């Protein structure tokens, strides 16, 4: 009994540590993205730890405004929802809760912070926020189609829906990225990732110059701090999802063989991989203009989904039943 409690406490501590790490990486990524954008534009740019400073400052604001308790739900749901989604991902092959859920669960868990955020934005009553949420939901509809097509193809190919199993299968065989059909799939999913991360050309939901950062228009102080945490963690979750699907979750050494060294190396590889995936998105962001929302929808449903259908047909014809 005592041992069980100690076990549970240990698990909780590890999970809390991992979530904290996730948030920390998210903040670091924010700084890195701004630094890289600055270097692309031939600027010096802020220090890489700028993300920490910003979040700390937002939570340190002396006064905060709220538009009522529905508005406050946004802060609660967005931080807790994204942390939960992170827990269900295998990180560098290390499974926190990922054996208790699967890809579908992660897709729907990602909707919790999004809907919570939308709830708060709607409750503020600002028309800009409402327009922004509409665009965000529509771009979600747009990028999910090619993404889920590729995911379904992978699930059928690996005959499992559990992300942990997909990562394990890639560790045993080869990374999906190096299978020709899923290399195309990775390109399709990378396009979807661009929309997921709300980077240009798909950043119309938060377009600061048109609708004053859209859903975030009424958020300030600690509310905005919570949303920044959500967005920063979101980059980690979404890039990790991509890395888990196509790059084997960054697993290069087997834990059974190398012990703690494997954990260390895998974590390093995972970090480098999500950084690369994220930086690709940032670089695309820096050179492209912005799509209107119906253009984004048409782009995803016409071109991206077309390639995804090709992958589905490939798997449909190739897999024996």
């Amino acid at each position: 009994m005592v041992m069980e409690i100690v076990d549970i406490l240990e698990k909780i501590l590890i999970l809390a540590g991992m979530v904290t790490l996730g948030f920390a990486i998210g903040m670091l990524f924010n700084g890195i993205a701004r630094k890289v954008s600055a270097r692309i534009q031939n600027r010096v740019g802020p220090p890489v730890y700028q993300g920490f400073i910003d979040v700390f400052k937002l939570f340190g604001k002396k006064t905060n405004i709220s538009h009522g308790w529905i508005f406050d739900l946004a802060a609660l749901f967005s931080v807790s929802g994204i942390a939960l989604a992170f827990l269900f991902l295998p990180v560098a092959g290390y499974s926190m809760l990922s054996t208790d859920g699967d890809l579908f669960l992660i897709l729907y868990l990602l909707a919790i912070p999004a809907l919570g955020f939308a709830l708060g934005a709607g409750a503020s009553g600002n028309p800009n926020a409402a327009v922004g949420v509409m665009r965000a939901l529509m771009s979600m509809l747009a990028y999910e189609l090619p993404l889920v097509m590729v995911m379904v193809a992978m699930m059928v190919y690996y005959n499992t829906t559990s992300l942990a199993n997909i990562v394990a299968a890639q560790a045993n065989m080869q990374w999906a990225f190096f299978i020709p059909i899923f290399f195309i799939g990775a390109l399709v999913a990378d396009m979807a990732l661009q929309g997921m991360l709300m980077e240009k050309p798909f950043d119309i939901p938060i377009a600061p110059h048109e609708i004053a950062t859209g859903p975030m228009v009424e958020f300030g102080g600690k509310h905005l701090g919570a949303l920044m945490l959500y967005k920063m963690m979101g980059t980690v979750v979404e890039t990790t999802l991509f890395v888990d699907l196509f790059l084997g979750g960054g697993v290069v050494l087997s834990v059974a063989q190398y012990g703690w060294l494997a954990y260390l190396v895998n974590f390093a590889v995972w970090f480098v991989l999500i950084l690369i995936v994220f930086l690709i998105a940032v670089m695309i962001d820096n050179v492209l203009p912005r799509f209107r929302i119906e253009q984004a929808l048409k782009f995803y449903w016409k071109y991206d989904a077309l390639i995804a259908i090709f992958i589905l047909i490939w798997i449909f014809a190739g897999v024996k039943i």
Partner: protein
Amino acid sequence: MLTEVLVSLLAGVFLVLALNKYPRVAGVVAFIISLLPFMAVLAWAGTMGITVPSYLKFFTLETSLTYNLGPGVIHLAITPLGWFFLMLLASVFPLTVMFANSFVKRNAGGFYAAMLLTMFGSFGLLLSQDILSFFIFWEIMSWSIFALVLRGHDRRAIVSYLAFGSLSAMLILFGFMMLYYKTNTFLFADMHLTATPLTLAALSLLVAGFAVKGALMPMHAWAPHAYSRSEEPFVAFLSGGLSKLGFFGIILFMYGVVGMSVISSWGTFRGVPWFGYALAVIGAFTAFAGTVLAVMQDDLRKLLAYSSIGQLGYIAIGIGIGTPLAMTGALFQALNHTFFKAVLFLAAGAVFYRTGKWKISELGGLGYKMPFTFLAALFAIFALAAIPITSGFAAKWLLYEAAIQKKFLFVTPIMLIAGVGAFLYAFKILYGVFLGEPRYDVKEAPLSQLIPMWLLVLPLVIFLVIPGWFVDITAPILRGYGMQPIQHTLFSINTGLATYNTLAVIFGMLGGLLVAFILYKWKKQEVVPHIDNYLAGEPPELYEHIGMHASSKYFEPFDEVFGPIFKKGAERGWEIVLSAAEILGTGARKIYTGIVGDYSIYVLLFFIILVGWWLLW
């Protein structure tokens, strides 16, 4: 005791009709009688392997009963499938009647009478064991629904329900005739069907007939009108409860009467009988198209009606795939849909009761005015959007898993994208009705409307925490069709592809909420009035007469992209039907000349043919 229950349901019909002058009294009487089916559900729970505490057993019921009615025999018996659907209907029914007490003002006695008669028909239908009684009860149920649709005074709703109701009855009758011709017996149990084309034709007709009630896509056209033009308590029961009877029929005849082995012997496609595959594809199309059409609606009831169509499509997918996983998913989806859609229709009714508006673009800001209605609706919307903090997720998850298990490569993305589409219209309801600028200064809905809503939310929470319990409930149904119930513990389900553990989700969410709450409570805050909004520096007083609610034409880009495809397509389809009806009508007009001589010739001709047929046969 079963006879007494049936008789008291029927007697209740006349009692509330007699009490028409005293609507409140009629409401109370109707509520008391409406509890009878639920008591029956509890009384039968023991035979389904569910232990119910003795203080919840109000009477004991025999499990089967036979009435000899001269020309025919009516066989009634409780089956696991019937019990499950009876449980859904019987739990929604008393609550909608309770809601009606404050909602229905006009000719209340008639309303309650028709509601009770509907329940009487459904009750008998779910128990009937032969095609004769099945058809009789089906017709009682259908016609009493018609009486309730008539109360909406909407011509389109009445005509379309009448047309599709008759079509459905016709299809079912033809199906039954074929079955009887084939087997020469009324009893389901005695029908041992073989894989012949006639069986296939009969089953197709039956499924098409039941699809009308389940609002599957080609047969859905009545639903948006009937759902959106009738009184909300009835619509909640119609959408939540009665629409499931179509799926009850499909499951009963597909897996109960005809059987999986017969269906499979007509040929399979990638491991799934093609009959089921076709049903799944129809279901997926319904789910997608219903969702897209729901996003485009401005009328709250129409939106919910199309959303109903979309969500019911998922059940058809599950039934079509037909594995234990899919069946469990379909039944789970049926249960979820029963409760969340009833809550949503009742919440819409409560909003109308207070504001008198149906259009989403005219509502707004009711979340702070009617917080309990809002919270109930929020829960229902989370269930509808399959967010994993209600039981709505488990059902969709089982269906997705089943589809992946059977390698449904093209159906699964459509299901998933329809799920994402559900977020769109869910937020349209949330923002348009409950969030944003407060436009009405109204009170919270009365208690007699809040209690039903919150009681209906309860199962969504219970089955979120304990999905294993649901699998246990449905296990007898699956065993009856020769399927093994899926692997599960109380809190987790294992499908062989993956595991879903609700405890991990719930405790993870609670932990996350705790941390977020601490972070959030770190600093104080002040609540500002709604008018204090950033509007590019403009003083908000300027916006007082314009309004800041952006809900009219909310998903305009969406309409621009999908509108031409769906609206025009639907219009064209209806035009074809209309012109066909016109041609038929003008043809018929030539026969009905109005001259007595012509009619006598017809009668004569009819008799000649009859006599000639008799002589030649």
